[in-house]
């Protein structure tokens, strides 16, 4: 099963424009890997394209999953209008997410996120901790106001936060944070966030055991339309491509051209 009318269990505003939605349905059984995404049909008949939103948490015992999203445009605004009991047409889980296999029990993982790239890192961190991996979180946010899930991440491991405006934690972006705080090379690094964040990660960790998650405008979400491609770094012809939706969204740092 790859599509279902899931039911909204609860919806909560976490910060200005940022919402947490809890969904239930049989599709939850299929959800395994952190940073796989749901391809969500917005309940507005003039909006044809589904919206990709990452899984923030999978709770198989309750047949529930959580997504966290920020209102960016009409689609996410319509999602924020939904109430408990409403139905939502969901395809998924789609994509290749973060592989917890990339690190061993007892090793240390750096988890690097920025803004609305942070949500999928929660399920990742949970799975790593469960595996016995030591996790350290390095997060960048625009300001104190839009920080979410700090307490939840603290339960899993150390959390260091930077804000662009200095209103909380270290003043600056995640790059600064990594330079100042992340003294040693980690056993593995996972990152998700803006292009700036991914570039900062790439410049520091290319060639290492490091993975990041990309965003792309999508249509099909399942590999058929070639909307979401990126160039392969290793390809001299420039003709080969990787598709973010089904070959990603997670790639090894250095595998693709940002």
């Amino acid at each position, binding site marked *: 099963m790859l599509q279902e009318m899931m039911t909204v269990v609860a919806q909560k505003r976490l910060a200005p424009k940022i919402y947490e939605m809890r969904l239930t349905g049989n599709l939850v059984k299929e959800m395994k890997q952190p940073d796989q995404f749901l391809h969500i049909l917005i309940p507005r008949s003039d909006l044809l394209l589904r919206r990709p939103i990452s899984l923030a948490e999978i709770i198989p015992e309750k047949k529930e999953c959580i997504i966290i999203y920020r209102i960016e445009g009409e689609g996410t605004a319509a999602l924020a209008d939904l109430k408990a009991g409403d139905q939502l047409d969901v395809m998924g889980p789609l994509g290749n997410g973060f592989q917890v296999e990339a690190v061993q029990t007892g090793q240390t993982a750096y988890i690097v996120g920025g803004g609305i790239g942070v949500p999928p890192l929660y399920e990742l961190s949970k799975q790593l901790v469960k595996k016995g991996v030591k996790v350290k979180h390095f997060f960048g946010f625009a300001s104190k106001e839009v920080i979410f899930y700090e307490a939840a991440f603290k339960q899993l491991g150390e959390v260091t936060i930077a804000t662009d405006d200095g209103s909380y934690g270290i003043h600056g972006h995640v790059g600064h944070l990594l330079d100042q705080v992340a003294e040693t090379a980690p056993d593995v690094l996972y990152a998700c966030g803006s292009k700036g964040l991914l570039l900062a990660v790439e410049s520091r960790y290319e060639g290492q055991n490091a993975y990041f998650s990309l965003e792309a405008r999508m*249509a099909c979400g399942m590999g058929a339309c070639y909307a979401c491609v990126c160039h392969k770094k290793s390809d001299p012809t420039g003709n080969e491509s990787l598709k973010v939706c089904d070959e990603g969204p997670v790639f090894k740092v250095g595998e693709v051209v940002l």
Partner: protein
Amino acid sequence: MNRLAVNLPGLALKNPIMPASGCFGFGEEYAKYFDLNQLGAIMIKAATLEPRFGNPTPRVAETPSGMLNAIGLQNPGIDEIMQVKLPKLGAYDVPIIANVAGSTEADYVAVCERISQSKHVAAIELNVSCPNVKHGGIAFGTDPDVAFTLTEAVKKVSKVPIYVKLSPNVTDIVPIAKAVEAGGADGITMINTLLGMRIDLKSRKPILANQTGGLSGPAIKPIAIRLIHQVSRAVEIPIIGMGGVYTVDDVLEMYLAGASAVAVGTANFTDPWVCPKLIDALPNRMDELGMTTLETLIKEVKAGR
């Protein structure tokens, strides 16, 4: 008797529904979602002589009841398509229509000649209407003389019937349709996308890296219906209609406009199962509307002109 069966040049269709080119890749991905044998036919992604990466991203944007795309004919080139993609599709009992694009007449001729030799290709869709690449053939689809010459040239080399895909971005489509008919086309497919643009308010730049893109989806359906209606009255060769088909009513509206079969593009992105769903839903809706078979409907529409 199969009331959904339709016979077109080179295409004995068990039903009239086929995914439109560029919206279904080479079928592999959708094969994970349903049995491709259910489909009437498959129009595969555009093939060019050389591999193409296509346009930079973003390549899609959303519009009211529509979308823009500027994929830019990304494809692995004819060699890989012949050697890898087509054989995989050969496993299904579904006629394959190969979409062919090029930037020169020689390109078109070369690709048509070779791809028509594949035992997996039942017909060629000559894409003279891609609005998304500088030399993507749209010039061939906007000038009747050029369209005539090209059609004639590919007809000479092709082993399979040629369907020419027309562009809606023209002042008058009728002379172009007549020209391709005169050039020997076995059928027409229409419509390709309308040229559109969206601009991002924050960056103040077009959302698509290519600036413009092709508009598809329900938004363009009334334009497709009008153009099919016009062309079906001007030519004798059959038309495969497309442009905004989402529902079984849309399929039948295409028939009433003059189409003989129907392709589905954008709707696959909203619902990957849309094609099998449409095929399932057709008989009931035909009953409600007093339509016995599609072949009869085609004749009735023709007679009613």
